[in-house]
């Protein structure tokens, strides 16, 4: 078998049955990374020797577990003691973490072989990887287009089979949007489900780690392993983790509605003038698929959806301005080499100059927007107003989930856009998250599933549909999504790289 043309679960089983060794599998992926990374720029840092050593330990029986020998990539904002953790920023270019993120550690405790760190928008701020200090990653389906973002290195790597599975992080859509436009499953679990310890902070009340995979079964397995309360993250939720979360073909618990699966649809996501025809077609196909399986379709109202983006860009930037204050040129990260003036302003100058050199344009823009929104005289008008709007958005979902089990909607309005198309217009870039951002604000779960293709100039460009589920309802959400996936072949398509 070719270990790179398979799914995580299949490869795990093949290694367990010794049909292929962990070292063979790891070498096969490392060879593909060598062959394609110059073109795709999917990996920012490779952990080649480390990965091969881990694989050998699996083959020698020294490392075991549910993921024994499976090569996995992690996003560049997840701390690991091996290599550098740069958040794709000049600020952290040489940063070597003294600890490993809990979520990554849990994968390694189950025998995963970590291949390296994937490229991303700097500090996870963006929707295209064009904000990376290390260059844009490319979409394997069309190299002139972005792989989405901010977890775009992750999706570029996965779509090109440079890893068997990969992790992303999602603050406003940064797992689901890139997964949708590269033909992959991208899952953002409920806020607090997976520890954020060792995830470099962007917006702490929104950030969540999640998997990017070819299938829902793979995503469910990784989620089950990563979930759980962590003493090192006080915001991680103390909610029991179902031992059968990985079993996406299992029974769907009978809903409050009396046994029949209820799929919610909301007009706010279905404006045909806003959505690409391929997105509308994919949504309709998925809806028909559920209907044909006997699901009841319920119209739900999410009237505050249109306030999601403006609300998000206050909440997220306010939190980012506070979180990124730690980069001061003193404790770790970039320090300017400019001489400091010998006066009382020396330390201010050192910090301001180090930060000006270390951060890119978008990061600076967001820090200033957040600082402004929190500053004296504007706090109530911006930050407090946004927090109240956030409550209204969460309330929309609470009401909707009284009537349905999951909400079906598009993940994005269209397929991948061309590199450079939105790079000079911050606001146009922000609109990428219009269908994903409200789930982060409400703290609930969302998964994007491959749902077909748009055809543009002879290129097949993937689109996705999203299923949104209630807080801590991951097991049921993934099973509901599986009812669609198992009737389709979209997830099997590969870009031919």
């Amino acid at each position, binding site marked *: 078998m070719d270990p790179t043309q398979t799914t995580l679960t299949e490869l795990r089983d093949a290694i367990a049955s010794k049909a292929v060794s962990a070292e063979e599998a790891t070498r096969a992926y490392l060879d593909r990374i060598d062959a394609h990374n110059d073109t795709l720029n999917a990996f920012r840092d490779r952990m080649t020797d480390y990965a091969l050593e881990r694989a050998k330990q699996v083959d020698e029986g020294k490392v075991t577990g549910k993921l024994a020998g499976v090569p996995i990539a992690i996003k560049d904002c997840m701390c690991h003691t091996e290599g550098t953790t740069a958040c794709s920023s000049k600020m952290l270019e040489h940063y070597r973490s003294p600890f490993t993120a809990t979520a990554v550690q849990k994968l390694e405790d189950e025998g995963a072989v970590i291949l390296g760190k994937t490229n991303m928008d700097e500090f996870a701020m963006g929707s295209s990887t064009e904000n990376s200090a290390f260059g844009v990653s490319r979409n394997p389906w069309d190299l002139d287009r972005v792989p989405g973002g901010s977890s775009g290195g992750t999706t570029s790597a996965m779509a090109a089979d440079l890893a068997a599975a990969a992790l992303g992080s999602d603050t406003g859509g940064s797992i689901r949007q890139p997964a949708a436009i590269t033909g992959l499953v991208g899952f953002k679990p409920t806020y607090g489900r997976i520890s954020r310890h060792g995830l470099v902070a962007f917006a702490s009340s929104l950030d969540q780690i999640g998997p990017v995979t070819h299938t829902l079964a793979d995503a469910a397995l990784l989620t089950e392993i990563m979930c759980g309360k962590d003493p090192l993250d006080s915001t991680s939720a103390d909610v029991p983790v179902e031992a059968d979360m990985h079993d996406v073909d299992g029974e769907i618990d009978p809903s409050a509605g009396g046994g029949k699966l209820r799929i919610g649809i909301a007009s706010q996501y279905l404006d045909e003038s806003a959505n690409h025809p391929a997105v509308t077609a994919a949504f309709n196909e998925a809806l028909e698929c559920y209907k044909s399986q006997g699901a009841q379709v319920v119209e739900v109202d999410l009237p505050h959806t249109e306030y999601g983006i403006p609300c998000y*860009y206050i909440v997220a930037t306010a939190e980012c301005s506070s979180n990124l204050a730690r980069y001061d040129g003193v404790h770790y990260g970039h320090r300017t080499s400019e001489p400091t003036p010998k006066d009382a302003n020396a330390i201010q100058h050192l910090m301001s100059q180090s930060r*000006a050199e270390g951060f890119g344009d978008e990061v600076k823009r967001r820090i200033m927007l957040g600082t402004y929104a929190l*500053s004296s005289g504007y706090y109530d008008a911006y930050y407090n107003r946004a927090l109240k709007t956030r409550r209204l958005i969460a309330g929309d979902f609470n009401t909707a989930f009284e009537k349905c089990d999951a909400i079906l909607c598009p993940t994005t309005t269209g397929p991948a856009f061309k590199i450079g198309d939105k790079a000079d217009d911050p606001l146009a870039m922000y609109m990428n998250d219009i269908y994903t951002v409200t789930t982060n604000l409400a703290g609930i779960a969302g998964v994007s599933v491959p749902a077909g293709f748009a055809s543009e100039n002879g290129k097949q460009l993937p689109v996705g549909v999203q299923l949104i589920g209630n807080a801590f309802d991951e097991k049921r959400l993934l099973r509901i999504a599986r009812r669609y996936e198992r009737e389709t072949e979209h997830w099997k398509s590969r870009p031919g790289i």
Partner: protein
Amino acid sequence: MPQPTISETDVRHAAKLSRLSLNDDQVHQYTDQLANILDYIQKLNELDIDGVEPMPHALDQHNILREDRETPGLDTDDVLANAPDREGPFFKVPKVLGDGGGA
């Protein structure tokens, strides 16, 4: 609600609070871009939010305390390995006070 347009003075002030050195060109550019973004954010003013409880966090958690017990921490040398400059077990910064010593 303040005026939607952010001024260059506001941007310089935000940059100062953010500890970001900006040149004049950058101040012009950020003023335009932030004005554009804030203009869009005015959309939030359409909503009646009287009496709505602010939602700073997705989970309803308060004051989570751990047991007051000593646990192993990170090794000082490992942590300081990332410092731009150090002296012994300390982070090193340029002289903070002027030559006169008064501040």
